[in-house]
Structure formats: structure tokens, C-alpha cells
């Protein structure tokens, strides 16, 4: 029988052929920043189309907007490509002057023709983020007249109404307002597509880094832009690797194969806290976690019931034990950091109070409803915690798990009872959230726009009018008061149980300094990152 034993042994050796070769490389190159991130939602790197967190961050480091803001105090707005701007008497026209002597990565000079082309292009292509610009009354038909070049370095942007000046400026800081290299993009135009086919996988910007390569679901490779007008970044290269699994990211980080892990789960963060080679950094983000209670459901349409349910969530326990530092309790529709954000958190778990409200509403024994939840570990855990506390007052919740697209389709069709949602603002102006939480111009089933208020069938003509007035108020202090009043009212009687504001947490190798976590993903910056030996 020795034949078998020998053969088996030989087979075993051949099976383990790889194990003896090439040890793992344990350190990333000193001039290269390597990050692990779940990149599988990226569909484009064209500023006119990008709307995903991942691609927004990548564009934020490779393109430049006309204007920017201080990430620590977003009310401080300054010019980036624009040197200055003026608003006309009637408040409807902005005149921008472009900074002299700036260049794109291609070497082409930046002139007023570039931002004009970029805005016209985004409006005409009409991709997902286009509404951020078209809300100013711009359309494919009129944008050539409304956005016009008036000199080599000046252009005008005309709006249909005199909106609060900061609204336009904040909207121009969003990725859809980033300035593309007109000459380069136009040279790739095919059949009047504004270079769309080309730019969705290519680069034409002026930011600190260029995008050398994007391979979907695999890698994004960025290189220092030698024509960048600001301080030269210390890193020559920045690479994002698509690593979908948080536990895999943790292993790579501990081994030193990556510098920053971006999708660590609560458990991984806890485990890494003891590792002296790793540090954890966090920053507050604009996303809000909330529960939407559909007003088409008879029980949920009762304001006493919605208020009772706001007393039936153990906010602090969920933040501490389930989310472990990835959220903080926040109960108003404007996140911290926004003009007019209300910082009161009036609700906490109070079963007795909820029971008496339910009795008053005519539901002394509670009722049964369904809750649609995305099947991610965190949302599922939050849903289960809520199910448990609601049960204490007799409200039975049946959880219906589904993947993201499936639950969203149902939510947009208004056929849910309760939906757990996460809403991220589209730009830094309070209107972005007021527009969805406090505006519902048409509550009909075939309405053209589907804000969150519509999705929960909440008919609010008065609040809609208040939100419309607030967006036209030019005095920031008055405007802030208007938003505070709206948030207070929503805390009382809205069908939104607003629970948390998101905190982004990352794990970094100890030698990595200078990564900036901003309020939105296109503010996250590695321009100033350095690595010590």
C-alpha cells in the first residue's frame, strides 16, 4: 500500500505549492496612499453623473468647484476656481470672475468658458444630480441663455427667482458643479453627447490628483497632478482597492497592506482599538437615519400614535450598543452643521407615556404593522431593537427584509407601513433636507416628484409654503429661525421618527496623518496626507 501513501503525499505537496513561495509584502510604498473601500456602487466618474458616496469622494480629490467651504464651519464660503462673485440688485443674477493663471491637469488654461460649459453640459445631459442645478429654473432649452460667458474670465448665471444666495453657492460645491476641461471633453464629443461616453471612464479636471484608471469593482488609481494650483500633495499616488468585506479590510490594515480601511463594522472597530499600530478617526456626516410612517395606514395616520411611537425607540441604547460610535442621537431633519439645525432631542424611551398616548388614540392594546428593512446587518439590528421596544406598548411589528433596491421600490410606491431610511443631504444648504422632509407640493398618487413627505403620504400645504418662503429668504439669521420652527413642528406631529446622525469612522495605520473627514463625501480629502517612516 506504500504506493498510495506516496501518491497521496505527492498530491498534498503539489496542493500546497503556493504556501512555500513568496512571503507577503508587509508595507505600502511611502509615497502611495492605499485605501480599502467597498467601491461596487460606482457607476461613473463624470461629474455630471456621479451621485454615489465613493465616486463623490474621488471627484472631490481630483476636480475643483467654483466655490468651496471650510469643512469645520460650512458658513465660511470661499472661491476655488472663482476669484469673486457679485449678486445683482434683484438677486437673480450672479456674476463670477475666474482666478487667473490656473490650469487643468491637461495643461489647458482655465477660463470662464470652462465653468459655463460644465454647467450647460450637466443641465443638458440631465443625469441623476442635474436637479441640483435645474431647481434654479435652468433647463436644456434655456441654459445657453441663462448661463452666459461675458468675458475671458467672467460669466453670468441667471436664476428664475431670487433664492437665498447661499443656496446657489452650496449647490455649486456639489460634484455636479465641478468644473471640467472644456477643450479636452469637447475633443471627445460624439454625436453631440458632450463627451459623456468618454468622460464616464476618463478624467478632465484640475484637482490635486488625476484619475489614471478606474476598473469597475476592482481599483481606482490616482496620481499627483503636477499642474495643480494649490500646495503639491505629499503622496505621488493614491489607490482605492475594492474590498467589500469589513473583516477582510481589518486583516489588510493590521498587516500593513493598506493604509486606511473605510468599511469597518462596529465589531472590527472595537477589536482594533487595542492595536497600537492602528488608530481610529471619525467625523460627523450629514446622513440622517429615520423611520417613515406611511399615513395611508389608518393607525399610523393618527398623530397621537406617531407621537407614541417616538417614545418607543431606545435611541441611546441603539447608538451605543448596535452602532457603537457610528451614529449619534439626533431628532431633527437638519443635521448638525447645517444652517438652522435644531439640536434638541426631546424623545427617549418612555413606555408608560407611549401607552397612555395609544390609549387616548383608541389603541389601548396596540396594533400590528409591517416594517420594510434593508437586509444590511446594521439596519436589521436597529429594526429588531425597535421591534422589541414597540412590543412593550403592544405594537406588533412584522419585519420584512429585502435588498436595497427592493425596499426602495416599495417605499417609492407608498406600499409600505414603516420604512427605515437613511437620507444624505445633496449639498450643504438646509433646503436640501427641507425640500424632502417638509415639502409635498402634490400628494396625488401620480405626483411628478416623490419627496420623503410624499412617500409617507403626508399632506402638508402649510409646511410646503413655509419651506418655499425659507428658500427665498436672503437674511441668514431669519432663515435659520424659519427652519428651526419647521423642525420643531415636525418633531411634534410629523410621521418621521428621526433617530440618528451618521458618524464616519475609519481605521488608519499609525503613520498616516492629515486625512480630512468632511461633512459630505466630496469633502473627504487626502490632499494633505503624509506618511512618516
Amino acid at each position: 500500500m506504500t504506493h498510495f501513501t506516496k501518491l497521496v503525499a505527492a498530491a498534498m505537496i503539489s496542493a500546497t505549492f503556493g504556501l512555500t513561495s513568496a512571503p507577503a509584502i508587509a508595507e505600502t510604498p511611502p509615497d502611495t496612499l492605499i485605501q480599502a473601500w467597498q467601491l461596487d456602487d460606482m457607476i461613473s466618474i463624470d461629474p455630471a453623473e456621479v451621485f454615489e458616496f465613493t465616486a463623490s469622494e474621488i471627484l472631490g480629490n481630483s476636480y475643483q468647484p467654483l466655490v468651496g467651504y471650510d469643512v469645520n464651519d460650512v458658513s465660511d464660503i470661499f472661491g476655488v476656481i472663482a476669484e469673486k462673485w457679485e449678486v445683482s440688485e434683484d438677486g437673480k443674477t450672479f456674476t463670477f470672475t475666474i482666478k487667473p493663471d490656473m490650469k487643468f491637469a491637461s495643461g489647458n488654461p482655465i477660463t470662464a468658458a470652462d465653468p459655463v460649459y460644465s454647467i450647460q453640459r450637466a443641465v443638458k445631459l440631465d443625469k441623476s444630480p442635474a436637479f441640483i442645478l435645474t431647481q434654479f429654473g435652468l433647463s436644456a432649452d434655456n441654459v445657453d441663455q441663462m448661463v452666459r460667458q461675458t468675458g475671458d474670465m467672467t460669466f453670468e448665471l441667471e436664476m428664475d427667482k431670487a433664492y437665498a444666495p447661499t443656496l446657489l453657492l452650496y449647490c455649486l460645491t456639489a460634484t455636479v458643479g465641478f468644473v471640467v476641461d472644456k477643450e479636452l471633453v469637447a475633443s471627445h464629443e460624439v454625436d453631440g453627447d458632450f463627451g459623456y461616453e468618454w468622460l464616464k471612464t476618463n478624467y478632465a479636471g484640475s484637482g490635486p490628483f488625476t484619475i489614471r484608471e478606474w476598473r469597475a469593482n476592482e481599483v481606482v488609481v490616482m496620481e499627483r497632478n503636477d499642474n495643480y494650483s494649490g500646495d503639491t500633495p505629499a503622496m505621488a499616488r493614491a489607490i482605492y482597492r475594492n474590498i467589500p468585506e469589513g473583516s477582510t479590510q481589518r486583516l489588510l490594515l493590521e498587516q500593513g497592506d493598506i493604509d486606511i480601511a473605510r468599511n469597518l463594522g462596529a465589531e472590527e472597530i472595537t477589536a482594533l482599538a487595542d492595536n497600537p499600530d492602528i488608530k481610529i478617526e471619525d467625523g460627523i456626516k450629514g446622513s440622517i437615519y429615520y423611520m417613515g410612517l406611511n399615513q395611508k395606514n389608518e393607525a399610523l395616520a393618527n398623530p397621537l400614535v406617531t407621537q407614541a411611537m417616538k417614545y418607543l425607540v431606545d435611541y441611546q441604547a441603539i447608538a451605543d450598543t448596535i452602532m457603537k460610535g457610528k451614529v449619534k442621537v439626533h431628532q431633527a431633519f437638519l443635521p448638525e452643521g447645517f444652517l438652522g439645525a435644531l439640536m434638541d432631542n426631546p424623545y427617549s424611551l418612555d413606555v408608560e407615556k407611549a401607552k397612555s398616548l395609544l390609549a387616548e388614540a383608541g389603541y389601548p392594546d396596540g396594533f400590528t404593522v409591517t416594517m420594510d428593512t434593508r437586509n444590511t446587518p446594521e439596519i436589521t439590528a436597529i429594526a429588531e431593537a425597535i421591534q422589541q421596544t414597540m412590543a412593550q406598548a403592544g405594537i406588533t411589528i412584522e419585519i420584512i427584509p429585502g435588498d436595497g433596491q427592493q425596499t426602495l421600490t416599495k417605499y417609492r410606491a407608498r406600499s409600505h407601513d414603516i420604512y427605515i431610511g437613511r437620507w444624505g443631504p445633496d449639498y450643504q444648504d438646509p433646503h436640501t433636507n427641507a425640500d424632502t422632509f417638509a415639502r409635498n407640493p402634490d400628494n396625488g398618487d401620480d405626483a411628478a416628484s416623490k419627496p420623503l413627505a410624499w412617500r409617507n403620504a403626508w399632506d402638508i400645504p402649510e409646511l410646503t409654503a413655509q419651506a418655499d418662503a425659507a428658500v427665498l429668504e436672503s437674511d441668514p439669521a431669519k432663515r435659520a429661525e424659519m427652519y428651526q420652527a419647521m423642525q420643531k413642528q415636525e418633531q411634534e406631529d410629523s410621521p418621521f421618527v428621526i433617530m440618528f446622525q451618521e458618524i464616519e469612522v475609519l481605521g488608519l495605520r499609525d503613520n498616516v496623518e492629515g486625512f480630512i473627514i468632511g461633512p459630505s463625501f466630496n469633502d473627504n480629502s487626502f490632499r494633505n496626507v503624509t506618511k512618516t517612516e
Partner: protein
Amino acid sequence: MSVSPANEGGRWRALPLLGLKAGKLVVTVAITFLGLMVVTFLIGRVVPVDPVLAVVGDRASKSTYDAAYIALGLDKPLYYQFWIYLKQALSGDLGMSVLTKKPIVEDIKRVFPATLELATCGIIIGTLVGVPLGIWGAVRQGRLPDQVIRVVGLVGYSAPIFWLGLLGLLVFYAKLQWVAGPGRIDIAYEYNFTQTTGILLLDTAMQGQWDAFRNVVAHLALPATLLGYFSMAYISRMTRSFMLAELGQEYITAARVKGVPEWRIIWVHALRNAAVPLVTVIALSYAGLLEGSVLTETVFAWPGLGQYLTNSLQNADMNAVLGGTLVIGIIFVGLNLLSDLLYTVLDPRVRRRT
């Protein structure tokens, strides 16, 4: 995938190889694919997911939404949409991916080599280890080696591959540092060579980039061994039962009576006959690995077909799902045909008929 160990299968399976039956085979394959496409297409349209959302996202204005709705052809009746799809597919165009904005064919060309490389290494390991182990188990039936092989096989077949993968990374990558981590190659080597075939072992070897080649091997070793272990478990069990069936036959007794050495009885007489159904088992295991092991690819951040399909499915990118399903169908039909062809080589009875 359950495979009947019955030997009889070999006879009728080989029949289509007769010239006359070739036409019948083409028709069968065509019907199989049409069925596959109809079912996948319908599932894609019946699932309660709005495919436009995958294109434009949740925030888009009504005009953006409507433009995408028409661009996807969703305003046309279902049968018409299918007809268009069928016509395009026949001309080799599987449509565009909503997610990657590239033609599906191009996407699959990009992701499939990664899966092919991993699955091929996996099946080689699985066969080289699994077949001898199965034979050994059959020869030592009921004794210690048999029991040990059974337990080892059971663990391989029943333990979640996701968990084994993480455990393997923890031990061999994080602690012992014998292998490289997740991914196909270190960034440092990524641009040292050009990807022509997409199979990195071949690309690096052909261009003489031996450092990069070693790095690819270091990355491949753990996931390939894991997939090899997984298929080994199944192959060794099947080998054992095929061998047991053969060893109980009268011709074996006759050979023993004649005084043929035991090793010859096992390796020449019995294995030769057991090899016929074994080929199907190995071919189908290989096809299973080529589907792209979703969990393995996720744990090892392996940009292959499994990850591509899952990601497409989760984002309601139905063209990509349809295209991927078709490719998998082609693999299964192709490997089935291949194993049928191998029958003629291995089984003299089939050879005589053809």
C-alpha cells in the same frame, strides 16, 4: 448538483456524437438556451424592483427618470422587449451594463479570467488530492484511513467556505505570513506587465516577470487551495463509491484469482472503469467553481464572475444578470459535452459504437 453514479449513463450520453444525432444535439442546446433566457428574462422583469432606479438613483427628477425609462425600452410590451433582447444576443450583443456603463460582453471578458484562473487551480488541486484519497478510502473501507478521509471530506463539504476563508486568512496570511492577502496581485507589481489573457499566471510567465508571477501564486494559493479542498471533499466521496462498486465486481475477483498484483487491480482494472463516471463528477465540480464562488470571491476580494453577478443582482442590473447566466449556461453545456467526448476515449464500448 447531484450526479448519478450509474454507469449506464455513458452509453446514451455518447449517442449524440454520431453524425446523425449532431443535429438533434444542436436543437437540444438551442432549446436549453431559449428556456434559460426566457426564465431569466421573466424573473428579471417580475421581481419587484424598479430597474430605472439602478440607473438614475433615488433623487433624480421626473424628466431624468422618464428618459432612462425609455432608454431601457421599458415602455415597450414585454414580448417585444424579449424579442429585441433575443435578436441582440444572437448577434453577440448582450446589451449594456447599467452599473459599469460598458457592454456586458466586455465586462464578462474582464471578470471571467479571474474566476477561470482560480477555478482551474482549484479543480486541479481537488482532483489531484481527491481521487487518490477516494481510492485509498475505498481500499481501506471502514478502517482508520477511510474514517479520517470521511471526516476531513465532511468538514470540507459542510463548513461554510466563507468561514473557512476568513480562518485561512487569519492563520496563513495574518499569523504565519505564508501567503499574500486578498486580491489577485500586489499594487507594486500591478503595472509591471500588460494583461493580455487576463490570466495573471500566464501573463506574468509569458512576459518573464517572475517576481510578479511569484506574487500572483502567493495570492492564488489560499483561495485555490480552499476551493480545491471544497471540491476534493466531493470528488473523494464519489471516487470512493465508484471504486467500491468496481472492486465488488466479478472481474476483480477473477483478476485476484489469476494473481494480478493488488496495485494493478486497483490502478489499472478498477480505476479505469471508475474513471468513466468520475469524469462527469469532476467536470460538473469544475463548472460549479467556474460559476464563480460568490462567497470566496467576496472574502478574498477577487474580482471575478461571482462578485460581478451578485453585485449586478443587488443593483437590479438585469442585463448583466442575464448575460452572466447565459455564460454559466454555456459553461455547463460545454463541460457536459466535453465529458461526453472523454467517455469515448475512456470507455471502449462507447468507442466501438461511434
